[in-house]
């Protein structure tokens, strides 16, 4: 990195304007950055260039929303390399209908008799996530240490969840909490991503369907693994959530 910085300042030494660009891009080492700040203070043309570069960056920041691959493209790619994926997705109206139906049926039904429908779980997962955001803190146990979070669940609920460490990928573990879905306590993990939170709820059994659901600014991605269904919810971009899910699935289990 320092080598790149040196290169940047060496390369630009003949042109103070190029140096201003390198400064705005964080490519100058501290000594060169300091020297340039002095020059900018004396030469308004350089200061104006800096202001324009930063203004342009802010303007470009508003058009960044395109770095999300269309779901159809993801599907095409997965098919092209022969990965499995469900061919048909339920329509919105079908999902809405199943929520109503599931809500009607689940009154009085016990968990063991009838597992809640995926859409119902997705709704409750979002509700729990939002409740977490509005609470004084979004977790019952605060810890970035998976070896603290996992045992915390022991003794509170029958099965402690799969906890993985994704801090190296930019998704630090923040804590865990116990949510309630269809009157059953279930473990949820809370991960951070930039200024956002991602909740992952684990349920014994249950059908992870629909695989992706977005409503009210929240995305839910659901999947099954080893007889367990996982539900990740957040207000981050769908693509970022997908990235998190992919990493979560691939990460090695934490030992007790």
């Amino acid at each position: 990195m320092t080598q790149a910085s040196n290169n940047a300042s060496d390369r630009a030494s003949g042109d103070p304007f190029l140096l201003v660009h390198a400064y705005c891009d964080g490519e100058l080492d501290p000594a060169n950055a300091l020297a340039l700040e002095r020059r900018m203070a004396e030469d308004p043309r350089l200061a104006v260039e800096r202001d324009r570069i930063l203004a342009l960056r802010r303007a470009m920041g508003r058009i960044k929303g395109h770095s999300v691959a269309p779901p159809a493209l993801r599907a095409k790619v997965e098919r092209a390399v022969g990965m499995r994926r469900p061919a048909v997705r339920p329509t919105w109206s079908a999902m809405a209908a199943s929520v109503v139906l599931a809500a009607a049926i689940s009154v009085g039904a016990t968990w063991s008799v009838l597992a809640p429908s995926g859409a119902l779980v997705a709704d409750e997962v979002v509700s729990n996530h939002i409740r977490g955001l509005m609470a004084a803190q979004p977790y019952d146990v605060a810890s970035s240490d998976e070896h603290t979070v996992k045992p915390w669940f022991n003794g509170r609920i029958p099965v402690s969840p799969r906890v993985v460490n994704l801090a190296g990928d930019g998704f630090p573990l923040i804590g865990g909490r116990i949510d309630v879905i269809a009157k059953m306590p279930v473990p949820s993990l809370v991960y951070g991503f930039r200024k956002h939170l991602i909740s992952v709820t684990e349920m014994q059994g249950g059908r992870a369907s629909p695989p992706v659901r977005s409503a009210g600014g929240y995305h839910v991605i659901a999947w099954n693994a080893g007889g367990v269904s996982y539900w990740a919810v957040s207000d981050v971009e769908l693509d970022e959530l997908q990235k998190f899910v992919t990493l979560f699935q691939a990460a090695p289990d934490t030992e007790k």
Partner: protein
Amino acid sequence: MSDERTRFANVVLPHLGDAYALARWLARNDSDAEDIVQEACLRAFRGIAGFGNINARGWVLSIVRNTAYTWLKRHRDAKVVAVDNVEEVEQAGVDAGGEWASAPASPEAALIERADTARLEGAIAELPLEFRETLVLREVEGLDYRAIAEITGVPIGTVMSRLARARRRLMVQLGRDAT
């Protein structure tokens, strides 16, 4: 899933959004961008065994970039790739008197910042391909000069001058549009 597919899912799929963004800006067309990403993903899948587990994102983006160039040459003739000329012309302009020295008074930063999004997108789309890719790799993908130099296969000095010229063109364009 097979090993290759698991590997592909872990290495390539997390960067699909970034791949699409880059392809979209290079092709300036959503459906062409999808074709490019799909082709790039197939290339990545076939080459996944050779990926050395270092910087998956950079690896994916460089495949997308190279695929886009091949694709554009095949589908849109030579005119999109006539950038070497552009660069020579630009360089001649600089040597002759300096775009830097001559343009300090306008536009104002505030004007640039308020720029209409559609106009800004249009101005970026009008940039010559190699200026555009350098700008997008920096401002949209957030890569540093070294990574951009590696992906585009040019020295860091060239990255710097392309980036500065791309920005300068946008600044002038946005200033002109607003008046």
